[in-house]
C-alpha cells in the first residue's frame, strides 16, 4: 500500500542519515563524553549563549590542566530551542546515539521537567546549571543533580538584605504566569514578603509573549507600593523596567533570577539603573578562581553573567565527580562521584551538594550602577 511504502522509505532514509553521522576523531587518551543541552534559540537564547561559551571554556581548561590524568572531556552541545518536545528528542539522542556520560542543562526549568525524566529512566546523570524552580527538578530522581541555587535559596536572603538598606513596608508583584521559572520565582517572592511582614498591595501577571505592560504597571503604580518585585525572563524584564520608568514609577524595582543577565541592562538602558537583583553569583568576589574565570571569559569575548558562572562551575563539578570516582567516567561513576563533591572551589564560591542533590553555596544581592551589575554592600 502506498502509505506504508512511503513511510518506510522515509524511515530508511533517516536511518542512512543517522549512520553516516561523523564520529569524533580518535583520541590518544580515553574520553568522557559530556552532553550539554541549552536554549540556543527561542525565548531563553540569551541565557543559552552565555552557558555555551562558559562550558566550552571550562572543558578546554580542564583538558589543558590535565587534572583528570589521561581522561579528556569531550563536549557534545545541542540546542533545545526552548521547546519541550525538542528537548526530549535531544536528550534521547545524546543518551542513545552520542552515549554521553552526563548531561548539563537544559536551560529552563520548564524543559527540565519534561526532559529530565527521560534521563532518569535511562540512568543518565543530569546536572542542572540554571534550573531554579524549588521543590522540583532534583525530585525527579537520583540521577538528577543541581548546581544552580533555587529561587527559594536566593530570593529570601536577597530580599532581607534589600530591606535592610531600603526599608520598605509595602510591595507590588508582577510576574509571568506561563513559565515554570517565573512562576516559581513569584511564589518565593510572595512567601518571603509575607514572612518579612511586608504588605502586598497588588499582584499582576503577564504572559511570555506579551510586549506591552502599561496596563499592569499603571494598575500597580496606582497602589503606590514602596517596592515593585518582578519575576520575568530577561527579554521582558528589559521592557518592564523601561515602561515602568516611562509611566513615572520612580520607586525601587527588584527582579528575580531572570534579570541576572547583561542583556537586561542592554535592553533596559537607563531604566536599569538602581534595579536590584538577587544573585547566586557574587561577581565582585576576589576569590582567584572567580577572577581568573572572569578574565578568561572576557579574553574569549564574553562578559560573563550568572548563567555562565553556573555552567562553568557545572563542568568543574563533573570533573571533580570523575576524580572522586577514581578517574572513571561512566554514568554511575559520575553519579556516585557527585555525592562526594565537597567544598569544591568554583567561581560561585565553595560548592557542595545538599543531601537532596540541590546545590549549596553563598548568595548575594546586586544593584545596577553605571550600566553594570555591582554587589550591594
Amino acid at each position: 500500500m502506498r502509505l506504508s511504502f512511503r513511510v518506510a522509505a522515509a524511515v530508511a532514509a533517516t536511518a542512512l542519515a543517522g549512520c553516516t553521522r561523523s564520529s569524533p576523531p580518535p583520541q590518544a587518551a580515553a574520553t568522557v563524553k559530556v552532553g550539554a543541552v541549552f536554549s540556543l534559540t527561542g525565548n531563553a537564547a540569551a541565557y543559552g549563549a552565555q552557558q555555551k561559551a562558559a562550558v566550552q571554556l571550562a572543558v578546554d581548561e580542564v583538558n589543558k590542566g590535565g587534572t583528570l590524568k589521561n581522561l579528556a572531556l569531550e563536549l557534545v552541545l545541542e540546542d533545545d530551542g526552548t521547546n519541550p518536545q525538542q528537548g526530549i528528542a535531544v536528550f534521547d539522542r545524546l543518551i542513545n546515539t552520542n552515549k554521553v556520560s552526563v548531561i548539563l542543562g537544559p536551560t529552563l526549568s520548564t524543559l527540565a521537567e519534561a526532559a529530565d525524566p527521560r534521563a532518569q529512566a535511562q540512568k543518565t546523570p543530569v546536572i542542572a546549571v540554571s534550573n531554579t524552580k524549588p521543590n522540583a527538578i532534583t525530585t525527579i530522581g537520583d540521577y538528577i543533580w543541581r548546581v544552580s541555587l533555587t529561587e527559594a535559596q536566593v530570593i529570601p536572603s536577597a530580599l532581607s538584605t534589600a530591606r535592610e538598606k531600603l526599608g520598605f513596608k509595602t510591595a507590588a508583584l508582577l510576574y509571568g504566569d506561563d513559565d515554570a521559572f517565573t512562576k516559581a520565582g513569584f511564589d518565593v517572592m510572595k512567601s518571603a514578603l509575607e514572612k518579612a511582614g511586608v504588605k502586598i498591595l497588588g499582584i499582576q501577571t503577564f504572559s511570555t509573549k506579551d510586549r506591552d505592560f502599561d496596563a499592569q504597571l499603571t494598575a500597580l503604580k496606582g497602589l503606590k507600593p514602596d517596592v515593585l518585585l518582578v519575576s520575568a525572563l530577561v527579554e521582558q524584564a528589559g521592557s518592564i523596567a523601561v515602561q515602568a520608568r516611562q509611566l513615572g514609577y520612580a520607586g525601587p524595582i527588584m527582579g528575580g533570577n531572570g534579570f541576572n543577565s547583561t542583556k537586561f541592562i542592554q535592553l533596559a538602558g537607563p531604566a536599569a539603573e538602581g534595579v536590584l537583583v538577587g544573585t547566586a553569583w557574587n561577581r565582585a568576589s576576589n576569590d582567584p578562581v572567580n577572577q581568573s574565570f572572569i578574565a578568561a571569559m572576557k579574553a574569549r569575548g564574553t562578559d560573563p553573567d550568572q548563567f555562565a558562572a553556573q555552567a562553568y562551575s557545572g563542568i568543574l563539578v563533573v570533573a571533580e565527580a570523575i576524580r572522586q570516582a577514581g578517574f572513571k567516567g561512566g554514568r554511575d561513576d559520575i553519579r556516585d562521584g557527585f555525592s562526594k563533591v565537597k567544598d569544591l572551589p568554583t567561581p560561585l564560591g565553595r560548592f557542595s551538594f545538599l543531601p537532596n542533590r540541590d546545590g549549596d553555596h553563598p548568595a548575594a544581592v546586586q544593584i545596577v550602577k553605571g550600566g553594570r551589575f555591582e554587589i550591594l554592600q
Partner: protein
Amino acid sequence: MGQQIVNGVFLGSIYALFALGYTLVFGVLDILNLAHQAVFMLCAYFALLIVLHLHLPMFFAFPAAVLAGGLLGLGVERVAFRPLRGRADSNVSGLISSIALATVLEALALQIFGPDVERFPFGIVPDRTLHLGDAVVSELQVVIIAIALAMLLALTWVVRWTALGRRIRAVAESPAAARVLGVDVDRVIAASFFVSSALGGAAGVLFGLAFNNVSPDMGRTVELKGLAVIILGGMGSMPGAAIAGFALGLVEVFTVAKLGSSYRDAVAFGILFLVLVLRPRGLLGSRALREA
C-alpha cells in the same frame, strides 16, 4: 484612570493601524492575508537596520520602512495570491499560502537576525513626557497616535475621493464588472496590497518603537488580535477597523486594570466569538457574507 485611557488609546492606535491593512485586502479580495504580520515584523527590522547601520534618524527610517512594506506587499501578492486567482477555493487556499509565506519570512528573519529581542537605540526618538491631569504620556506615544490617525484619514481620503479609490471600490464590488468597465484589475489589486502592507509596516515600526521590542515572532499575537479587530469592526470596513482597534485597546487595558491580566487575551477572543455568532458582519460591515 486617566492613565489607563491613555494606555488604551495608545495600544488601540497600533491595533487600528494593523487592522486597517488587513481589512483593506479583505474588502477588495475577500481574502485574509495572514502574511500581513510578517510584513509588520520585517519592516520593524528594516527600520532598525537603517538606524543601526546607516545611522540615519527615524525621520528617514520610518518612511523608508513604510515604503519597503509596500514593496513587500507587492511581492506577497505576486507570490502567494495571484497564482491562485482563478481557483474555486481561492479564499481558503489563499489563506493557507499566505500562512506558508509568513512562515518562510519568519524563518528568514530568525536565521538572519537571531531569536533575541532587539530594541531601537535609546534616544532615537525624544523621550520627554507630558502630563495630562494625572496621566503620563510620552512624546513618542503622542506621535504614534497622531501618525495612526493621520494614516487612517489619508486612507479614507484615498478610498473615497481619488480615482484609485474609485477603482478599488469597483473591484471590491465585482472584479468582473470592473474589468468590463476597463479597470486594470491586476493593478488595482497590486495597489491595494501595496497600501495595505505599507500600513502594516508602519504599524510594525511604531510597535517596535512603542514597546522597545523587535523580534521575529512579534507579529504573532498582534495577528490574532488583528483578527478580532476586523471581525468586530466588520470585514472590509475601514472606519470599522479603526473604531474597533481603539475599542479593543481600551477594553483590554481596562480588563487588566479591573480583572487582572490573565483575562486580557480572553477578552479579545471572546468578543471575536460573540460577534461571529451573533452579528457576523460586525459593527460597520455592510457586505453580505459571501460564500466561501
